[in-house]
């Protein structure tokens, strides 16, 4: 057994080293992996640079405002109507953003980070809403987005199965093409062991290459040091995906066909699982649950907002005080300017609850669309794998939904702070002004993938395992009938 094992290792080594095309395929794969890691790291660098710019912009504005406090002024000299001791101006000058910070693994799984915005303004009086986050895709080159990103997930999800195909498609089938299979069987102690070893060697070799790329990616991005557990999960899921494809291709080879037929079947599987199924699932789900023209959102942002701004203030005071039992309407009639500011905040609070409602609906429709996609997960391994890694790296839609919720919470928190300050009917002092900066956490959203991810991949692996057994049985029965091996 051991000598067979060693002989087969030597044979596989020779088979690859003597085949220029296979050698080229391995080199191309590794080159693509290195390029993907570099490209992902470059993307994350730009992302981080944006956050630095954002921070310096906020700091500049805050410093200007704090300077006024220090000098005993309430605003710029040339605009004497600005008074940062009033809550609405304090809100404007207490510049703050909520930002999504890239996880170290984001360089290895870019996900949606070049499509969705990773930051938003925190303001309770400038119509800030979670939808205000500009759409980077519409300001950039959409043809670049269409071409797709070149990150490690793409290399592993798309290119790795093709490398496996190149290394595996003639395992056993070439012997069949050359009419050598009978000889192989007679000269081997256990034909099954021989076949298993031959089939598993390319799989283990590709798994080793995948691990090398993950290791380089982990070192280059600092993920091993910063988030070792997540990096480990990244490697584990990638290895599982590699073995899944190994199993699928082994099922094809177990049918006992010639090398060209095996290659055709393998390419068919790759096209099916990596190209047709993901695209078809997207098309089918989007025709069932179209995104359409965001009518509900646009209505809230315009018609309903104006209805609140122009409507009778008494209609909004009841729900406002009911939601804030710690507040009560002023006993004496305050100055006209204060009444006006109070009314403005009451209206903003009413608008905010509309925004919360529409944001909730938007998230629910996204979740139900993703649930519809997940129903096809067991035949959609490339997507399930990609999604798992993007969830780990905090660049998947679930991360952006959480980010949107954090934006909403931050805006609400800011709003409540302003309401408290306004209802005290005292000017906003420096401490209160500084406390407004604390709103808007900057954080990453990497997390463990949903449990369904593993079960979906396992279902497909089990199906491939069953198919391997079934094809093998059919082949044996055919060989017994025809006598042709």
């Amino acid at each position, binding site marked *: 057994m051991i000598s067979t094992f060693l002989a087969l290792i030597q044979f596989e080594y020779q088979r690859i080293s003597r085949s220029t095309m296979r050698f080229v395929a391995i080199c*191309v794969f590794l080159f693509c992996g290195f390029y993907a890691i570099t490209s992902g790291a470059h993307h994350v660098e730009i992302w981080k640079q944006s956050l630095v710019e954002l921070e310096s912009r906020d700091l500049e504005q805050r410093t200007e405002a704090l300077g006024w406090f220090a000098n005993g002024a309430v605003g710029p000299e040339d605009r004497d109507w600005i008074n940062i001791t009033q809550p609405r101006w304090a809100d404007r000058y207490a510049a703050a953003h909520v930002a999504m910070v890239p996880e170290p693994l984001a360089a290895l799984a870019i996900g949606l980070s070049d499509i969705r915005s990773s930051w938003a303004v925190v303001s309770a009086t400038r119509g800030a809403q979670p939808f205000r986050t500009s759409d980077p895709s519409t300001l950039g080159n959409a043809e670049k987005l269409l071409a797709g990103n070149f990150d490690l997930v793409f290399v592993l999800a798309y290119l790795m199965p093709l490398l496996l195909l190149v290394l595996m498609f003639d395992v056993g089938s070439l012997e069949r093409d050359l009419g050598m299979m009978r000889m192989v069987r007679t000269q081997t102690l256990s034909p099954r062991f021989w076949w298993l070893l031959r089939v598993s060697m390319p799989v283990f070799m590709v798994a080793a290459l995948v691990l090398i790329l993950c290791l380089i990616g982990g070192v280059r991005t600092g993920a091993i040091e910063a988030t070792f557990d997540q990096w480990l999960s990244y490697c584990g899921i990638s290895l599982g995906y590699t073995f899944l494809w190994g199993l699928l291709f082994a099922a094809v080879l177990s049918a006992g066909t010639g090398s060209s037929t095996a290659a055709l079947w393998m390419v068919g599987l790759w096209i099916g699982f990596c190209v047709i199924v993901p695209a078809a699932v997207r098309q089918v789900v989007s025709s069932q649950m179209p995104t359409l023209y965001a009518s509900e959102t646009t209505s809230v942002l*315009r018609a309903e907002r104006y209805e609140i701004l122009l409507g009778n203030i008494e209609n909004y005071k009841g729900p406002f005080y009911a939601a804030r039992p710690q507040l009560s309407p002023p006993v004496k009639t305050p100055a006209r300017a204060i009444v006006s500011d109070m009314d403005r905040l009451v209206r903003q609070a009413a608008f905010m609850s509309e925004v919360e409602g529409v944001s909730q609906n938007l998230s629910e429709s996204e979740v139900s669309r993703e649930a519809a996609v997940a129903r096809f997960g067991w035949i959609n391994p490339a997507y399930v794998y990609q999604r798992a890694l993007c969830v780990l790296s905090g660049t998947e839609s679930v991360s952006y939904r959480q980010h949107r919720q954090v934006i909403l919470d931050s805006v609400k928190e800011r709003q409540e702070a302003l309401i408290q300050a306004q209802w005290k009917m005292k000017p906003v002092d420096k401490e209160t002004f500084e406390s407004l900066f604390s709103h808007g956490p900057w954080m990453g959203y990497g997390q463990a993938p949903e449990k369904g991810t593993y079960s979906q991949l396992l279902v497909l692996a089990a199906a491939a395992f069953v198919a391997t057994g079934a094809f093998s049985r059919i082949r044996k029965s055919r060989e017994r009938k025809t006598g042709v091996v």
Partner: protein
Amino acid sequence: MIFRLFLLELRSIRSDGRLLALVAVALSILLLSVWIGAESQRVVTEGRTAAMETSRQQWESIDRLSAHGVGHYGSYVYKPNSPLSTLDSGVMPFTGKVVRVEAHVQNPPSHSDAASWSSLVRLGAFDAGTILAHLLPLILAFTAFSSVARDRETGLLRVLVAQGVPLRSVLWGKSLAYWFLSLLLVGALIIAHIALGQASGEPLTTDIKTRLMLFGASHSLHLLIVVLLSVWISARVSDSRSALMILMIAWLVTTVVLPRVTAELSSQIFPLRSQITFEDDMKEDRAKGLDGHNPRDERRDEVRQQVLEEYGVEEVRQLPVNIGGILMQKDEEYGNQVWDEHFGRRHDTVRKQIGVVQAISFLDPFLAARGLSMAFAGTDQFHDAQFQRQSENYRRDLIKALNDLDAKAGKREANGRWRREKIDYSEIADFQFEPQTVDFALKHRWPEIAALLTWLIASLALLHWGTRRIPIVGTGR
């Protein structure tokens, strides 16, 4: 002779169940994509109509706002789907569909499909353009990889050459047979598209017909290049397995790796400034203009003085117009220059990035085919930029009309106060999108046409003159 060899190859394909199955699968996928696309198109068109109706209803019910207030209230513009987007959705999923049209600011389109999808959106689209440009070349490569190699391995090629059949004719016969298959698929697709369009009552204008024809022609040319190269490689390489691997690596590099690398490269050669810098610079430049809402702005005073001189009066209260409307329009005109400068620079950079891709399409025919496919379907970046331009023009016209109404719709009362008239805003027309003609696509995509033709000439030359070193006898066995 070539025709006989063509028929012989077709017969050979017909007798191979695997190849027939592949062609049948390709045909089914193409027809399915057209059907699903048409269904999606119907839903999206209905959705757009409903959104437009809601928005218009909200517009017409404006009651208590001044003309400039209505400018702030604004309107929404909804991007229509191109009639051929069912064949190739192009950049549509990645670009915004809704533009908020309001005073003082040029908003970019928002609410793209991609912004509300998971990362599934990155795994390609299920449309005819993708299938024809991505998948069909792979299927053709898989059907043609053994076309000559198999004949050489079985000895048939030696027999044919010994009988005086020129090797060139063999390659031509085989190439035409595989191209014929792809023409059948492209033809079936176009017929299916027209039939579905007719069934749903969509008009088939001359422009759509021309676009359809060019869409089919560009894909057919690309597939011919793929077939010619596949057959030549099958002939040139000593065994079919090596031919298969070369074709697969070539497919992978040209359709999967190079497009992504090219896109990355283009953005590195011509980087776009970050969104934050873009917004900051615009804000800074905008602040240099006059501030229509700032009563103490010096530039505002200058304009006021000009208006007073123009009307030959000394005080604002003597003007027969509302100066507020005039100031707002002046402010708007300054803002427009700022938007033109900054958005223009950004669009120029994007155009340069696309230029890099167009240049590299001389190395990769897939890039040329993809660019042409989107352009003829009316779904490329250039067509999308036209929508943005038209919506911005509409915004400027709308805000000017509103500012003019703000300035003129009313009268000066005896006490010098301006009394506004009640305005019927429903008389202001909604946005109407003017689709681009096919000339627009041709004008912007000539590099891809040139690239595809160069590839075609090179492939034809290879097949015609590159037969000298083709082995007649196999060395594999």
